[in-house]
């Protein structure tokens, strides 16, 4: 690796990429590179991050055209001809530079009924949930989402259909339709059956390819298609 990295960073004011030279390090993440530019070259550069350890889902950006969590992406892994291109996440409006407005992404979580609807009160006994039941296994496959929107940026169905709820929101819905403690099954099936619902997924699998936590929203969406089909025929839940 040479001494300096050639880094193109998207700037919203000029609507163009700006070139920066950044000192190369042996161990360096994309977020380190962006932070170095902001600290040393241009303090007006805007970007978003919080935890720096792959838990909060704040720092996702397009790196060399692909969506990635920048705090856990090593420069060595993605460097092409000693250069990097860093842009805001695809499929979301840009607030400034590398910071996107995540509101449409989270609005769709709500639209897909991503909120757990409990059926018990604090006075009821805690319901035992065995981890190896089919429902719990299905719910658990989808549960480790950190809301980073990498899948949303990777999804061509989102690009083509502004109403489409997207992989993350549908993945969340899949967790909840398999949660036996949840009391909003019918509403959720209804919510994922509309013009922006699960049937608009083309199963390209970009979400599963890029998910930094190795989740498979594409499989969750296929599961929702099966559930909604059962519902359409009036065949019941499972």
């Amino acid at each position, binding site marked *: 690796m040479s001494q300096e990295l050639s880094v193109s960073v998207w700037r919203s004011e000029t609507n163009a990429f700006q070139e920066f030279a950044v000192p190369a390090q042996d161990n360096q993440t994309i977020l380190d590179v962006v932070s170095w530019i902001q600290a040393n070259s241009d303090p007006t550069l805007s970007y978003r991050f919080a935890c720096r350890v792959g838990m909060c889902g704040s720092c996702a950006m397009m790196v060399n055209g692909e969506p990635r969590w920048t705090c856990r992406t090593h420069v060595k892994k993605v460097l092409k001809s000693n250069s990097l291109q860093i842009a805001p996440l695809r499929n979301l409006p840009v607030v400034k530079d590398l910071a996107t407005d995540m509101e449409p992404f989270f609005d769709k979580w709500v639209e897909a009924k991503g909120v757990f609807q409990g059926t018990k009160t604090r006075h009821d006994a805690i319901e035992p949930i065995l981890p190896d039941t089919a429902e719990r296994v299905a719910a658990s496959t989808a549960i480790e989402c950190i809301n980073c929107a990498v899948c949303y940026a990777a999804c061509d169905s989102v690009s*083509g*259909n502004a109403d489409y709820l997207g992989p993350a929101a549908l993945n969340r819905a899949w967790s909840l339709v398999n949660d036996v403690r949840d009391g909003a099954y019918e509403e959720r099936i209804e919510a994922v059956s*509309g*013009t922006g619902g699960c*049937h*608009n997924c083309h199963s390209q699998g970009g979400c599963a390819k890029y998910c930094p936590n190795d989740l498979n929203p594409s499989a969750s969406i296929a599961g929702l*298609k099966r559930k909604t*089909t059962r519902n359409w025929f009036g065949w019941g839940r499972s």
Partner: protein
Amino acid sequence: MLTTRLYMLQRLTALIMAPLVLGHLAVMIYAVQGGLDAAEILGRTQGSVLWMLFYGAFVAAVATHAAIGVRVVAFETFGLSKSVLTPLTWLIFILLLSLGLRAVYAVTLSGVLG
């Protein structure tokens, strides 16, 4: 732009088409064994209720399946609104259905009905 109803219509018509495509391909291979001959083909299909139902169902399934597919492509490529998409879907459906049924009529009934 796909609702559950359109999705189910497209999947169910795909299920109908799958065996019909295989049947159609098998008959094609069988029919050309002694050379391609219109009289031989029409001899098999003219007046046959079975072939009329076979290709009639095929045409109906294709028209439905393709119209919904083109609707999705048109929406995602050109961003057309629902007020344009719905008539476009029906137009493609009617066009494919009428062309297909005309062909089915020609090979099964026209010789019989004169």
